[in-house]
């Protein structure tokens, strides 16, 4: 579903160049729930922003469903973001002036899809993620977990090839965090959604099928969820400890 090949990205500040992603290659299969972890400065958020095409990369390929989406003209990129990519941000990025239901409808409103089906789908997603009771409320009136579940529902509206989530549990308490992870898992199980999530939260990552661990812009290791979630989390914590310090990241 997502194929990243030899991706490079360097930030330049004045005359100094800081390579952040170094010849990075990996693959995410359809229906897979993949997390990216790593210590501060490892390039997690930069990787996500490059895949989203929010920032340009220096060279390499980003293939979405077999097609290279890097360097596309603005109009085509808009279409891909709307139809084939779904976004979930750490600070939710909901429009405060729209209700929960309207926020969820937005991707299909932009795509000018038929209204009846759109509303039906939005209601279904609300039910699926347990936010049907707050459907008519505005973002300011609901909890953080509900906001993020709204964002997940919105991301799924156009059945994208992949959901790109940037620290989706970063601003949430543990209960809300579990609710959001459940939302991703339900999307994966019931809609066969593919999720690519940047996180520093080992607990959240322990629910994933696979975790890509970055260090200094390269893949340090890849861990696959084989046994119990608890065992996978211990394995993750061991790797992170080995890398030194926590994996807090805001690059």
């Amino acid at each position: 579903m997502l194929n990243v090949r030899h991706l490079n990205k360097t930030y330049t500040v004045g005359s100094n160049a800081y390579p952040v992603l170094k010849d990075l290659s990996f693959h995410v299969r359809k229906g897979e729930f993949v997390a990216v972890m790593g210590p501060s400065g490892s390039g997690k958020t930069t990787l996500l922003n490059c895949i989203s095409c929010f920032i340009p990369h220096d060279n390499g390929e980003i293939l979405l469903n077999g097609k290279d989406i890097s360097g596309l003209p603005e109009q085509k990129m808009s279409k891909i973001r709307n139809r084939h990519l779904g976004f979930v941000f750490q600070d939710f990025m909901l429009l405060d002036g729209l209700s929960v239901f309207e926020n969820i409808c937005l991707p299909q409103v932009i795509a000018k899809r038929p209204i009846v089906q759109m509303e039906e789908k939005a209601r279904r997603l609300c039910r699926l993620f347990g936010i049907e009771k707050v459907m008519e409320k505005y973002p300011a009136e609901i909890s953080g977990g509900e906001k993020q579940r709204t964002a997940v529902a919105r991301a799924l509206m156009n059945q994208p090839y992949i959901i790109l989530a940037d620290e989706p549990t970063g601003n949430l308490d543990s209960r809300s965090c579990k609710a959001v992870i459940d939302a991703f898992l339900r999307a994966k199980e019931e809609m066969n959604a593919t999720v690519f999530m940047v996180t520093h939260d080992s607990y959240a990552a322990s629910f994933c099928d696979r975790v890509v661990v970055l260090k200094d812009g390269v893949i340090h290791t890849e861990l696959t969820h084989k046994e119990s979630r608890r065992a996978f989390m211990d394995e993750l914590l061991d790797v992170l400890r080995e890398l030194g310090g926590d994996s807090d990241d805001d690059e």
Partner: protein
Amino acid sequence: MTMNKVFKKLRGRNKKQYQLLAFCIFLSVLLVSAFSFMYFGPTVQEFLPEGGDTRKLANLLLGVTAAGCCIFTVYASTLFFRQKSREYGIFLALGEPKKELKAVLFTELSILCASTSLAGILCGIPVSYLIWKLFELFLVSTSRTGYRFGMGGFLAGILFALLLALLLGVTGRLFVSRTDIMDILKAGQKTETVKEVKPYILPLGVGLIAAGIILGSGLQIAAAYLFRRLIPGTNLFYLLALAGIYLVLLSAVSQSRLGRNKSKFYKNMVSVSMMRFSAKSTTRNMCVIVLMLFSCIFSSFYGMLYTTTAQTASGGLRGFALHYPAREDQITQADIEDTAKKHAVTLKDFCEGDGANLVISYKATDYDDGKYIDVDKKEAKLALFLSCEIYEALTGDEPDVPAGSYKTVTPADYKENIWDHTDGLYAAANPDTGENLPLSFGGTLTAGSIYAMSMPYAYVINDGDYASLTKGISPDYAEHIVLFDVTDPDSSYDFAKDLYGQYVSHAGDISLHIGNYDAWEERLCLKQGEEYGYSPKPDLSEDIIDDWKYGPAFAIITKVDSLQLLSIYVMLCLYIFIICLSAAAVMSYVRSVSIAENNRTLFDNLERLGADVSYRDDILKKQLSRIFSYPAVLGCFLGFVFSVFMTWTNDRRFTADEITTLMIILGVIVLVLAFLYGVYYFSRAAARRIVGL
């Protein structure tokens, strides 16, 4: 649900974002339209001579008004776009094409501009009428000065609205064209830092402000009087004051060190830190606000100065003064009385008499090659001389001038300038016989109407001296003087105009000379075979004859006719005042809201750290009060100090009128500060909502 409905709903929920921009567009179009309705109205157009300086000045004023309005409206639009940036970032991330967003933005801006501009243009009509009525309160109102509406104002208002729409369109296009979603999503979060502000910055800034004002406004005068030299480019010293303002504000914005008063430091720590993160832009912004308020105070000072000038323009001895060559067949006392009767005007203090133009030798100051030099002008020109007897008959005052001396006639409250000296005359001569009499200075006499009849001054000499000097003089050098008043000057305009017309129709060739004409100078020039520069004749067919040596001085006409120039100047000042104050208010408001938006996370964090509402409110209050109080106090203070300096350096003294003007300026400052406090209150309420207090 469609995109149109989504945008409609967002507009409904974000009404406040549109309100400020709508208000600024409305105010801008209102100001320009109101000005245009007046300027293109028949009253002003008939007053202003084609191609004259006043018309040029009015055009300049229209341009300045339009430019000022554009600046503060575009500035307000930056807040509008900043508030929209998050919304647009989300739309772009969700795949809405930029083209669609541009179309929506331009539709919104077009509707906003069209509706508010229409309201502005329509409201411009009553506003221009009210402003005109305000002028009439200060100045004499006649049928000629009544408000008349000009259709050209509509066109100017519409053109300005189109220009504004174009500018906003360009700003909007730039906003949407920012290609990087990351930039848009993080547009409100960019912060800057400044280098450490050293403790000496504040005193240095204060010193530079003082030096700038003193050197800029005082050096020229000091050099002229003390060293008798003209120093070019002293205005450049004002740049020192500008640099000083920046340093003072920079210090106020970001300097806070742990000194003796630790509790104060810790109390202000958070609010100062908020300032530090955006110190450069905050300081720049505050500097502009200081300059706006400075211009605001200074323009009101100038406006007041013009108004008091209008009130005192006719401060001569009598309201009606005539002087003309004695050989001229001019209107008589009977003609004047008949005309007064026709207009139901009652004359009083009527008196007339003859004086003589004698050749004078005097000392004065000239300017040559960058230096002021003393010159001895021996038998250089003519000046009007009166005998004591005639002077007493004309003015009712006994001059008491001993033989061999003279008294110089000045207006009331006269202050000598650098060029002419009241005691400069040392001899007078008969232009025909050459009879010369050395004279010594015996003091001054006050009679504004007579002072205005001769350059550099009119003189009064002893009756005996007058008789000996005028013995054998040809009647060509004699002048007839008529002075009188009316019982009700304000209703004498039609009488004055009638009399003026009669006077002009009686004026023959011997009266047709421009103000600087001097028969003796002409004689000297011709003798030396040179061309005389002041020989052109004035055009008596004009309604108002500006430059006529023998032009009647009728105070009521001067007062009313000066309205044309004065109204333009006062309007200029009033408009600059309104524009500067509006700009300062809008900029302060925008800054306050920006600071609240940029520091939303900080307030959330403070709450998480256990800061209660009153603590957070106190932080916000301190922060916003600095945004308002520093520029307000500095701008008003500098405006007032500069006004005081200008008043003093003008003639090195303060007259009663000038002191009154300065007192009124203090009152204006209080009003400006009260207005800014209102804006602060409003801004604080908006900021409190933003940070969730």
